[in-house]
């Protein structure tokens, strides 16, 4: 009897002790002990503050200036005589600045419609690694005005909620319910966008902004939903965004409400955004 007992004990020890040893090796610490995993804010959800045209879940950091130079060429459907759109270009030159953590201001001037736009973007919630805050949540409020008096020079206001999540190291998504008001009436739209990392410094991005409601009338016909696909390429302090889009304009009222190109009839165009960040104020000031 006792020999069987011993044998069982022996087998138990033989089976369990390596497991015990390896468990000890995993934790490693004998002095510090094992602590629960620390929680941190989830960063790098997108490479820059725009998915393509749409405001993304990223926000310019406090004390940082992000200068944006955006180009959209003419529609590819213009054909070889116009170098498939490369002969025409529309430009937006803008800048964003992080005033304090979680709040940034932006301003821009577009050649299309001679439009000036400005806005404030505020982060309500920042996704955390322990999922105590599963989403990032931001609001954007902007105003834009065109200098072309024939088209009416009233302000158009944008109110946008941006919600989404970095699901994995590679994949992030967001939705952006949007309301434009002013000019000829109200426009309700829902932006959706995502990014998928291809390499550590390159991502594939896509966004679609279906409009659910727009005012009636002659001035509001012939518009399509904005759809854009492209690549973000990050090189140090620059992010290059290269894309195809059916939107010629880069200010919210233009690409959300007044996209006049159709993907079906080669109304899409090549475009790029260049983003360059400058640290203006040492981040220690905000810590």
């Amino acid at each position, binding site marked *: 009897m006792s020999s069987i007992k011993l044998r069982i004990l022996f087998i138990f020890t033989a089976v369990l002790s390596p497991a015990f040893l390896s468990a000890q090796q995993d934790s*490693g610490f004998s002095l510090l002990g094992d602590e629960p995993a*620390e929680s941190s804010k989830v960063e790098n959800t997108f490479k820059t503050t725009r998915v393509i045209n749409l405001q993304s879940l990223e926000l310019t950091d406090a*004390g940082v200036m992000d200068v944006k130079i955006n180009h959209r060429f003419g529609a590819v459907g213009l054909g070889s005589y116009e170098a498939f759109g490369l002969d025409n270009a529309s430009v937006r030159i803008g800048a964003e600045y992080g005033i304090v953590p979680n709040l940034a201001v932006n301003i821009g001037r577009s050649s299309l419609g001679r439009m000036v736009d400005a806005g404030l973007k505020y982060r309500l919630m920042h996704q955390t690694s322990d999922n105590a805050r599963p989403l990032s949540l931001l609001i954007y409020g902007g105003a834009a005005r065109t200098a072309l008096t024939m088209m009416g020079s009233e302000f158009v206001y944008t109110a946008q909620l941006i919600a989404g999540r970095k699901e994995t190291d590679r994949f992030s998504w967001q939705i952006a319910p949007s309301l434009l008001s002013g000019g000829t009436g109200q426009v309700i739209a829902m932006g959706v966008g995502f990014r998928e990392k291809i390499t550590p410094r390159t991502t594939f991005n896509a966004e679609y902004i279906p409009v659910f409601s727009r005012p009636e009338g002659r001035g509001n016909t012939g518009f399509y939903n904005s759809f854009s696909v492209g690549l973000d390429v990050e090189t140090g302090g620059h992010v290059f965004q290269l894309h195809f889009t059916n939107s010629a304009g880069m200010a919210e009222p233009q690409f959300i409400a007044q996209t006049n190109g159709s993907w079906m009839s080669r109304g899409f165009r090549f475009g790029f955004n260049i983003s360059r960040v400058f640290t203006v104020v040492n*981040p220690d000031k905000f810590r």
Partner: protein
Amino acid sequence: MKYFFCIIVVLGLLQHSEAQVYSTSSGTIKFFSKTTAENIDATNNQVKAALDAKTGNIEFAVSVNSFLFKKALMQKHFQENYMETIKFPKSTFIGSITDNTAVNYGKDGTYPVSVKGKLTMHGVNREVTIPGKVSISSKKALLSADFNVLLEEYKIKVPANNASQIAKSIKVSVDCSLQKK
């Protein structure tokens, strides 16, 4: 009775090993990257460290996301592109002072030591020997060390584009003031 004896021995051992432990959770580790194009440095003030005076065993744990830079974008790139903190949130060192008897924990003074152990960073485990100092003053033990880390040895890749801005060998400086428990 036999079991009782075993338990006593085990408990005794446990107590023994916790007798003279110094520790902190607010130590400092800095690193410097020096190139002709750019100098980069970052500081982490939330380093956890412990030292057992009896055995000379030493442990460090660092949350890599807690390294603060002078530029926010650099910090993001450090986390995302270089250290990949989503996969490898912590760096650790587990080792011991090779010549622990040379340190007189009862007497104030500065003692040069050599620490040998495993440095784990970016998911890579390496056996290292680091020269440093233990400074004893009253109930505190100040651990300081300067050493270099080769990025290549820890599989931290720098793209050709940034090779002129980031040094191949990073200087690390440790400065942790440990309190006796």
